């Protein structure tokens, strides 16, 4: 039973991560390869609060505060990193965000106060289904509502045609940054939730590999679709578990399967399962 609850928690956390990355990569069309870095910042700052600073309040209040702290630090980092990086073009932006993601991880490795290379232990188990899925729901609602309004349309226009968008009075840099900051903020919340679920976090957990896995989730689901991000997260959280049932050896080849999946998707169905469409509601139709 515990196993299934834990799986569900991880699934919910990845839903938040994929929906938030989708805002940046899918809707704004800005290719970020450093999402795990913001996840890490949220996890470590949230955990640091719980372990070093938290007053003796009921668990769920501390968790909430921890999430707010994680989210805030992550979005501030998103602002600091986004301002220089979002001026860069497509593939250069990808590399720059990759670079920052790694820098964040490497700095954490060098921070002994949060465990450094040994990891951060003894984080209280505060996350539960209610709070993780509560935040997941909030993330989805926030992004969905944002995208249905004019600010969301402005964000999409960047992806569609940046020059045309600018000619219509849209400050594309501001909206790129907005998407980036919001996306990184929610990744930070996911980090805090993750820390209080696993109780032990290590820089390993937030490596470039994980940025790629989250990316795979949204590409599989459909870049530019919230439903796609959710479905992608669910599939790629459950898949390794299902593989494990097929035997230890198959499970070891999980990453090989993922990489082949990435290649095959790009060759055959780069738009993913949902493309730019959603499950619910009309696609912003008239």
């Amino acid at each position, binding site marked *: 039973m515990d196993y299934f609850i834990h799986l569900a928690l991880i699934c919910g956390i990845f839903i938040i991560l994929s929906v938030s990355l989708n805002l940046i990569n899918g809707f704004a069309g800005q290719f970020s390869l450093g999402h795990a870095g913001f996840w890490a910042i949220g996890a470590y700052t949230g955990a640091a609060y719980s372990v070093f600073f938290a007053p003796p309040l009921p668990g769920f209040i501390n968790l909430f505060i921890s999430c707010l702290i994680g989210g805030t630090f992550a979005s501030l980092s998103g602002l600091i990193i986004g301002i220089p990086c979002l001026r860069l073009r497509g593939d250069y932006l990808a590399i720059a965000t990759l*670079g920052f993601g*790694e820098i964040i991880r490497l700095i954490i490795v060098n921070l002994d106060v949060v465990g450094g290379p040994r990891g951060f232990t003894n984080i209280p188990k505060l996350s539960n289904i209610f709070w993780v899925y509560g935040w997941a729901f909030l993330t989805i609602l926030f992004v969905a509502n944002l995208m249905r309004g004019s600010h969301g349309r402005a964000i999409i226009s960047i992806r569609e045609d940046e020059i045309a968008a600018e000619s219509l009075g849209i400050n594309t840099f501001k909206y790129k940054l907005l998407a980036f900051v919001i996306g990184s903020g929610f990744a930070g919340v996911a980090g805090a939730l993750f820390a209080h679920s696993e109780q032990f976090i290590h820089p390993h957990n937030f490596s470039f590999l994980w940025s*790629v896995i989250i990316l795979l989730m949204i590409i599989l689901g459909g870049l530019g679709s919230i439903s796609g991000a959710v479905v992608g997260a669910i599939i790629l959280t459950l898949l390794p578990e299902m593989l494990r049932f097929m035997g230890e050896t198959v499970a070891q080849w999980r990453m090989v399967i993922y990489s082949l999946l990435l290649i095959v998707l790009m060759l055959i169905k780069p738009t993913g399962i949902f493309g730019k469409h959603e499950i619910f509601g009309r696609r912003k139709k008239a």
Partner: protein
Amino acid sequence: MSENTLFLFYDFLQYLVNGLSQGSIYALIALGYTMVYGILKLINFAHGEFYMIGSFTGYFLIRSGMPIYFALPLAMLIPGLVAVVVELVAYRPIRHAGKIPALITALGVSFFFQFFGQGIIGADPKPYPSVFPNKTFDFAGAVSVTATQLIIMGSTIFLMFFLWWFVKFTKIGKAMRALSYSREASELMGIDTNKIISFTFFLGASLAGFAGVMVGAYYNSVEPMMGLIPGLKAFIAAVLGGIGIIPGAFLGGILLGVIENLVVGFWISTYRDVVAFAILILILLIKPTGLLGKKSKEKV
């Protein structure tokens, strides 16, 4: 000069030599990145894996008794062929789709080789057989250079000049340069662009394979994930020098190698990788076309 300063200077020289040696490796790998980017505007993330494949090819061949002068060319040939196949199967079909899909595919290919390698060879590091004589040369008690280091630096310089000659004077080299200016124009001029692209992949991967064997010889150990970090570093080197520019790969590689070793020697060694990535960020922000790059304006 006091004795302390002298020793400090000797230390500096030593780290410099190590840096030149390490930098040569980066330069060799960076060449492949830069050549492919020059003609396809593709960041081939999987390039580090060609280096790894070359290293392992050398490992298996030398261990089975093959002498180095057979094993080394084969260790260059195999990754070259693998690269050609990868380009044909994974990159060519989506060439029209844009830079980001290509980047994603390259990520997929990279991880595929890393984890596939891990799956069949095992993740633990393997001891590399001794390839070069175990000699060390001492210069006035100040600096010591191993035979392997000398071979690495020497061969890098040689390969650099060879490549310069090749790109400047041979037909294929000229075709490569033409492609880097404009693929369409090259096609109109009757150049078989697909062949040239395949060849460029082959060439870049062979150089990486060569570097792989050198690294195995230098550090005496290899493992399937060994391509990831040097791959990223070589990419940083290529960007630093000017992506798409061959001398840039050389300059960037050497610079990065030297800076890294100076950080290890005179600052905090665990910051070595952070500094490398910081250099990447700085170059992208200040001069994204790299040290040797030119600024180009796009017409709308």
